[in-house]
């Protein structure tokens, strides 16, 4: 078995209250290799962010209830790490960059202080002067002009794009091997979005990081990712390389997504939106979560959870219809690639 940089297997997250249980993530499995960009795509509430938050122990429990067959970092079992040792992993080996840096950065501390905190926590032997020098180097790296001066500014004194750059500087401060970027460009202008993505790609290449990109932007995925997982209602619907999933999509949901992209439409055609709205995750259905909105749905779809099948074009698809076509009605345990 190959050792992946980062690997999740059969992750389940439920939020429990006395009144109800919301199954936010159901059986999510994926892995990322060295130097690779892996994108998780889905609409809001599809569980893409919650999966990563669960893996990074950022959900409060209760109400969150998390189970997984495996969570591994370079083969090491992350679930076995005691909470008091967790800080050696988060920020150091696996770092995160969040969306909307205005709220994700602490408004009452300077940017320099927040970047420096990475060193103060993880590199206690560094002196203040060394930390400052390292922080300036980081700001220069992510393309912030006049870094010496900007270090003493507060987040609200930065522009949106600059804030996101500062956030990235903080993420890469300790040379992490995996960088999780959660909608890193959502709050930004289109031109700035492209700059930020270029920066992330360039950093990833230089440092041979693995980049996990969480986004709802298919265009972005097509341009930057190596492999992709399409999530819907807490489940991975289709996963494979960009070429496989976007080139020869098989899952009805993926097909629907690509059909609802403005670019996919010939001039004069109408947009074909996916009809209906995402399911209420509190009412856990036994069947495929997409069944109610699926144009190809069969009776079995609303009764049984669909199997995951490896289709000839190379990707894994979680769908009854595709499984039947491929002559594999039996349910496979999990994704294997």
């Amino acid at each position, binding site marked *: 078995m190959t050792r992946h940089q980062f690997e999740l297997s059969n992750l389940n997250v439920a939020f429990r209250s*006395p009144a109800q249980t919301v199954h936010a993530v159901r059986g999510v499995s994926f892995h990322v290799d060295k130097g690779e960009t892996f994108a998780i795509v889905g609409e*809001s509430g599809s569980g893409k*962010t*919650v999966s990563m938050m669960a893996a990074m122990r950022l959900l409060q429990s209760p109400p969150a209830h998390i189970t997984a067959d495996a969570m591994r970092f370079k083969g090491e079992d992350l679930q076995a790490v005691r909470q008091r040792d967790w800080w050696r992993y988060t920020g150091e080996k696996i770092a995160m960059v969040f969306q909307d840096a205005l709220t994700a950065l602490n408004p009452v501390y300077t940017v320099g202080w927040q970047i420096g905190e990475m060193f103060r926590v993880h590199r206690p032997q560094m002196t203040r002067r060394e930390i400052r020098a390292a922080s300036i180097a980081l700001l220069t790296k992510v393309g912030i002009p006049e870094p010496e001066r900007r270090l003493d500014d507060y987040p609200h004194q930065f522009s949106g794009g600059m804030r996101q750059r500062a956030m990235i500087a903080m993420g890469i401060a300790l040379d992490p091997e995996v960088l999780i970027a959660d909608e890193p460009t959502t709050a930004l202008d289109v031109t700035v979005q492209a700059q930020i993505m270029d920066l992330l790609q360039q950093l990833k290449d230089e440092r041979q990081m693995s980049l996990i990109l969480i986004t709802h932007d298919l265009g972005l995925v097509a341009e930057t990712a190596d492999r992709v997982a399409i999530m819907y209602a807490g489940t991975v619907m289709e996963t494979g390389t960009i070429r496989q999933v976007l080139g020869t999509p098989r899952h009805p949901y993926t097909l629907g997504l690509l059909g609802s992209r403005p670019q996919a439409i010939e001039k004069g055609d109408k947009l074909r939106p996916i009809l209906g709205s995402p399911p209420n995750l509190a009412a856990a259905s036994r069947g495929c979560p997409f069944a109610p909105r699926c144009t190809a749905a069969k009776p079995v779809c609303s009764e049984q959870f669909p199997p995951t099948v490896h289709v000839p074009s190379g990707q894994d698809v979680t769908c009854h219809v595709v499984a039947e076509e491929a002559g594999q009605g039996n349910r496979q345990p999990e994704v294997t690639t």
Partner: protein
Amino acid sequence: MTELNNTRDNPPGAPSIQAEMVATRTRTPYLYFLIRDPVAVLAALWLLFLLFCALFGEWLFGDLARGMNLAARAAPFGTTEGGLVNILGADALGRPILARIIVATRVTLGIAMASAIAALIIGTLIGLWAGFKGGWTGRVIMQLSDVLQSFPSILLAMVVLYMLSPSPLNLILVLAVGQLPVYIRVARAEVLELRERLFVDAARVIGARPYQIIAMHIGPMVIPTVINIVTIDFALIMLSESSLSFLGIGVQAPNITWGLMVSQGKDYLETAWWMAFFPGLMIMLSTLSINLMANWTRRIRDPRERWRFERAKQA
């Protein structure tokens, strides 16, 4: 760029999911939440008991509370001599503390309630006026309200009661004045917000005068906020009244309030502690109950906390 959704992703994690839970919640009656919370039940029962005392106390114990009984002078706590009514002891004139406490409920609560309601009505009206008028009038009103707010309310009451006479009506008014600023602020803020929203679109489109629209919508907006404030104010005013009565510039004998009773008992601390202790305990339990209920309603209404108390859905 393709957007799967045009709304920005919620800040991920528990909060957004909880919001979702709240959105899909079943409507659970308040009574259900109440019986699940023993502390709130006790508080509610206590308030019911007070209501009963306020309504029927005078009728049941009025004579006992005022008549002198030299035989029972300073009867100690726990005695049953002369009937169970002496269980909490008696004061220097032999009047049973228990009876006096029960009879005092009406005036104590009455003053606080009258004062709280007066503050609510006057404050809200001034606030609405300040909001409607805007400009200079509005600014002057707010400035005055700031003066009032930054000045210690008990000191204010002391000075005013010094210049006027400490009649119950003056007491009610002076206690109300101290609480005006909150209502002025809230009511004015709501009017300004409504103006912002309706002035431009609805009013112009329908051709109605903006004031008419504001007048129609202001009630439902102001009332819930103001009701919550008034409950907490009620407890606050009760404390202020008892402080003033304790200092001898509030309610005067022969009226009885709990604060006055503590004041009358304070000279007997070494010989008859029950004279001051039990009336004070009543104040404490009553303000605590009111605050507990206010706190509880607020938590139940808060979506961030409400889910914790929700009823399990029947399968």
